[in-house]
């Protein structure tokens, strides 16, 4: 028996601890399993899946920036069919909640993907990506449009009984307005945030460092923005939040929970130290013990403002 209860609840979903692995930073789990025991983490979010396989953007796709990185992967993924045939069998060997992230170019495509995937028992929930900055159609075009986000939530909810989490973009003036419509349309939780649009130039060639010109900024550079977005949602809308953005250590996790997150996701850090999630569990427990916190979930939204 652990002395501290690390389990958390995100709407109807239960996780054994608040640490989930973020979409696009764990592939479909198999490579990560060489570094850590997937059964010990809270949950896994797949790379964004689309109805058909996507080739993604041409190189150069990534570049490091101060305390962060820009990526313009362009949602390269195997597509729903190959995912079910070739990727799910591996993930089924583990007892870890699997959240399928879906990205699409049209509202119909979101619905179609959900309809197909919802039949698969091994999938616990969906995370709807309406916030990819790196594709021409879909992505931020939806993420910036409140009524589109509402409509996607409503339509996806209508074809699945599984929990639906909507992953929001920070590239909007008031993220809480988007969270509000997600809640109104029956969405179960919010993931916040996806990457911030950014760019970088080579001063000798004057060309952008990534081929797509702009990319999504992630890593510790975005943590303060992410925290502010989580806080804004927490203060304005009654919906569970999964906090994401620049988490590098266990203290960052505590900070995200204080700001209002029920759980968190780790992204860029997986590239640097894929074993980090396990290392952090121990520290979370020690922090709770030291501060006489019996259940880590008590931290959620416990800010003293």
């Amino acid at each position, binding site marked *: 028996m652990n002395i501290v209860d690390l389990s958390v609840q995100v709407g109807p979903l239960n996780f054994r601890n608040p640490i989930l692995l973020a979409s696009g930073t764990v592939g479909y789990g198999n*490579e990560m399993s060489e*570094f850590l025991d997937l059964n010990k983490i809270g949950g896994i979010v797949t790379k964004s899946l689309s109805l058909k396989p996507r080739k993604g953007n041409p*190189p150069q796709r*990534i570049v*490091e920036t101060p305390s962060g*990185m820009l990526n313009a992967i362009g949602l*390269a993924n195997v597509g729903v069919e190959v995912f079910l045939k070739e990727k799910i069998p591996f993930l089924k060997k583990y007892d870890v909640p699997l959240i399928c992230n879906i990205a699409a170019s049209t509202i119909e495509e979101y619905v179609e993907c959900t309809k197909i995937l919802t039949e698969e028992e091994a999938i616990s929930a969906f995370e709807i990506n309406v916030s990819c900055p790196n594709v021409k159609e879909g992505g931020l075009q939806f993420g910036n449009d409140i009524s589109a986000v509402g409509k996607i939530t409503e339509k996806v909810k209508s074809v699945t009984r599984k929990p639906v989490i909507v992953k929001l973009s920070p590239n909007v003036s008031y993220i809480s307005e988007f969270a509000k419509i997600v809640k109104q349309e029956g969405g179960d939780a919010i993931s916040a945030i996806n990457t911030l649009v950014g760019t970088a130039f080579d001063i000798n060639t004057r060309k952008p460092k990534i081929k797509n010109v702009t990319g999504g900024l992630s890593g510790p550079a975005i943590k303060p923005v992410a925290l502010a977005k989580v806080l804004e949602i927490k203060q304005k809308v009654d919906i569970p939040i999964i906090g994401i953005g620049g988490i590098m250590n266990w203290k960052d996790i505590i900070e995200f929970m204080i700001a209002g997150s029920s759980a968190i996701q780790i992204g860029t850090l997986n*590239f*640097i130290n*894929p074993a980090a999630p396990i290392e952090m569990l121990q520290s979370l427990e020690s922090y709770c013990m030291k501060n006489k916190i019996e259940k880590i979930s008590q931290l959620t939204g416990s800010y003293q403002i």
Partner: protein
Amino acid sequence: MLVIEALVDKVIELDNQIFLLKIHCPEIANSIKPGQFLNVRVSENIYPLLRRPFSICNVEGDYFYLMFNVFGEGTKILASKKYGDSIDILGPLGNGFNYIGDYDTAVIVAGGLGAAPFPYLIKKIEKGKNIISFIGGKTYREVITHEMKNISIATDDGSLGFKGNVVELLNEHLELLKKNKIKIFACGPNSMLRALKEFCLINNFECEVSTESAMACGFGICQGCPIESTKNQDKYLLVCKDGPVFNVRDIII
């Protein structure tokens, strides 16, 4: 594939601002193959944030070597490492060269820091085979001959050896190359690899190239390192996982 804290033995400066980092790490030294690479965390801090990929340069007992030049923040930190410093290594990564096989002469083609993977490859190629090396650089400063064998040199400005690029130099030796059953192993800038590919297709030479790419993870999860495939144009290959070594016919450079 593992993440491991290894110990720095020393940093050796070769000529021309080229450094070797000697690291004690039996786990990696005993398992890594020529052409594979390691993703190295140069600092505990968040700047530089990402690991840096380095080809394995050589292995000696429980030690291995990486070769680098001081280019940015990351390599500056590496150059300042001292005996006993710990260094966080992720690897071995990628596939490595297929150096066992039916050829009698290994032809090494290296441009600039593309020399890095060859000392280890040369060491591993079986005794009965010949090895000849063609080494190129823009100027003599970029020519790295460290532990190479039977060396011919080309520089763009003619400051050392043949004046021209290394593929033009190969062309000069075409008769000799054709006399033997050769396999080419190459690493260098894309412009060199592109010219080399054409040369190999025209002359029907076997050739494996070690490619470079920007990388974040180095083990296949970020999709940051695509390279165009000749066999399936609907899907990129990943330099870190499907490579970094490719049959030159399988990729579009």
